[in-house]
C-alpha cells in the first residue's frame, strides 16, 4: 500500500513538473523563440546583477506587470532590436508560477558540473 502511494506521488510530481514545463513553453518561451529573444542571456543578466533568486523573481514580476525600459534588466540598445513586451494578461498566481518556472528552468545549479562528473559521463 505504502509502496503504491509513493509511486503515485512520484508519478503525480513528474506529471506536474512536465505540465508546468509545458505551460512555460506555451506562455513564455515559444514567443521568445519565435522572436529570437535570448531568454537565458536575460536570466544571466539578472543573475549577474542581483545574485539572489527572490530579488530576481520580484524584478521579473515588476517588469512583466509594467513593461517599461526602466523596469527591464536589458540595456536601451536591446529594445532597438527587440520590441518591448506587452503588459501581461495572466493572473497573479499563474504569473508568479511561470516566473518561478522560468528561474527554475534556467537555474545555473542544474548546469554546473565538476570535471570528474564530465569524465564519468
Amino acid at each position: 500500500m505504502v509502496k503504491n502511494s509513493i509511486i503515485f506521488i512520484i508519478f503525480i510530481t513528474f506529471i506536474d513538473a512536465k505540465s508546468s514545463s509545458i505551460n512555460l513553453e506555451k506562455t513564455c518561451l515559444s514567443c521568445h523563440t519565435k522572436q529570437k529573444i535570448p531568454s537565458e542571456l536575460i536570466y544571466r543578466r539578472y543573475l549577474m546583477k542581483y545574485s539572489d533568486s527572490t530579488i530576481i523573481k520580484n524584478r521579473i514580476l515588476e517588469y512583466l506587470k509594467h513593461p517599461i525600459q526602466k523596469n527591464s534588466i536589458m540595456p536601451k540598445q536591446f529594445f532597438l532590436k527587440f520590441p518591448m513586451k506587452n503588459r501581461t494578461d495572466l493572473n497573479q498566481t499563474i504569473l508568479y508560477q511561470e516566473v518561478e518556472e522560468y528561474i527554475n528552468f534556467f537555474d545555473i545549479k542544474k548546469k554546473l558540473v565538476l570535471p570528474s562528473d564530465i569524465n564519468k559521463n
Partner: protein
Amino acid sequence: MLSSEKRSLFRFLAIYLSSTLILFLLTTTILYHYQKHNIIDRQRDKLQVEVQKIVQKLRVLHTSFNTHLVYPYYKPFNSAIYDINKKYIFGSFHPKNILWDREFYIKNDTLFFVYKIKPYYLGAYYLIVSNKINPKPIQNLQKILGLFLLIAFIFFTLLGIFLGKLFVAPMKESMDNLNRFIQDTTHELNTPISTILTNIELLETLYDCNGKKEMKRIEIASKTLSRLYDDLTYLKLNHNYHRDIKSINISQLIYERIDFFSTMIESKLINLELFIEPNIILKMDKNDTIRLIDNILSNAIKYNLVKGNLKIELNSKELVVYNSGIGIKTKDLKTIHLRFCRANLNEGGFGIGLDIIQYIVKQYNFKFNIESIENHYTKVTIRW
C-alpha cells in the same frame, strides 16, 4: 671538588644557563613565528592566484550557454560559490561555519580565502577557496630551530662550565690552601697528642701523682686536641672514605662516648641526665657514628654553662641532646652548619662540628634539627 665549590658552580651555572636559555627561547620563538607567518603568507599568495584563476573561469562560464558548465576545479585547491544570501550554489566542497567577515583565516590546518566577486558571475557573490597548509616547510623550520637551540645549549653549557670554573677558581685555591694547612697540621699533631695521652695514662696508673687537678686539665686539653685531629682527618678523607656499614649498638656507644667526655663534663660541673633506651641498633659505619655523637656531645659540653644541664634522650626513633647553654642567635641558625662557620668566637674550634654532623646525617638520610633560644638552651634532634 668541595660541596661549597659545587654549590657555587651550580648556582652560577643555573643563573647563567637559565638566563641564556630564556633569551634564546624568546628569540627562537619570535623567529619561529615570524618565519611561520612568512611560510603561510607564501601559501596564501598561491591561494590568491588561484582565486583570480577561478574568477576568470567563472566569467567565461557566465557567458557560456552549453548544456554543462564545467566548474573550475584544480586540485589541491577546493572552492565553492555562494549567492548574496550566503546560500550554497556549487563547488568542489561544502565547508561549514565559514567566517564570512574574514578575508583569510586558518581552521583545522586549512587556509581559507573568502573573496567577494563583482559582478556576480553565475550569481556568485562569495567565492571560498581553501587549501591544506603544507606542513613540510613549518616542520623543517621547527627542526632547524630545534637543532639550533640544542647546539646553542650545548655550547653555552660548556662555556658556562668553563666560566664557572674560572669564577670559583680563587675560592677553590683558598679552600685548597686551608685544607693543605689542616692536613699538614693534623699530621704534625698526631704523634705528640698520642704521646701525651699515653703518658698521662701511664702516670695515672704507675705513679701516685700529687697534681691530679693539673693532670685532668692536661687530659681534657689532649682529648680535645685528639678529637679535633679526628674531625679534621674525617673531613679530609670523607670524600674517598669507604664505609663499613654494620649494626651498631647506639645505646652502648653513647655510654662509651660519655665516658670519653666524662673529664670535661666533670670539670664543668655539668648535671648530666640520661634517658637512654637500651640496645638501640642502627646500621651505620662506626667511625661515622662516633664522629656524629662526639660532635653533638662536644658542642653540648663546650657551649654549656658551668653547673649547667645536659640531657641526652635516645629511643628507637631519635636522639635528642639538650643543653642549658649560651644558645644560638636566631639569625645564625640557618648558617651555623656551614663549614668554618662559628656563631660564638669565645670558645675554641674550627667551626667544623656541625658541618660533619650535617654531612653524616645527609649520608644516612636522617633528619637533623637545631632548636635554640639565645642564653637559654639548645636542643639538637636527629631522627632516623
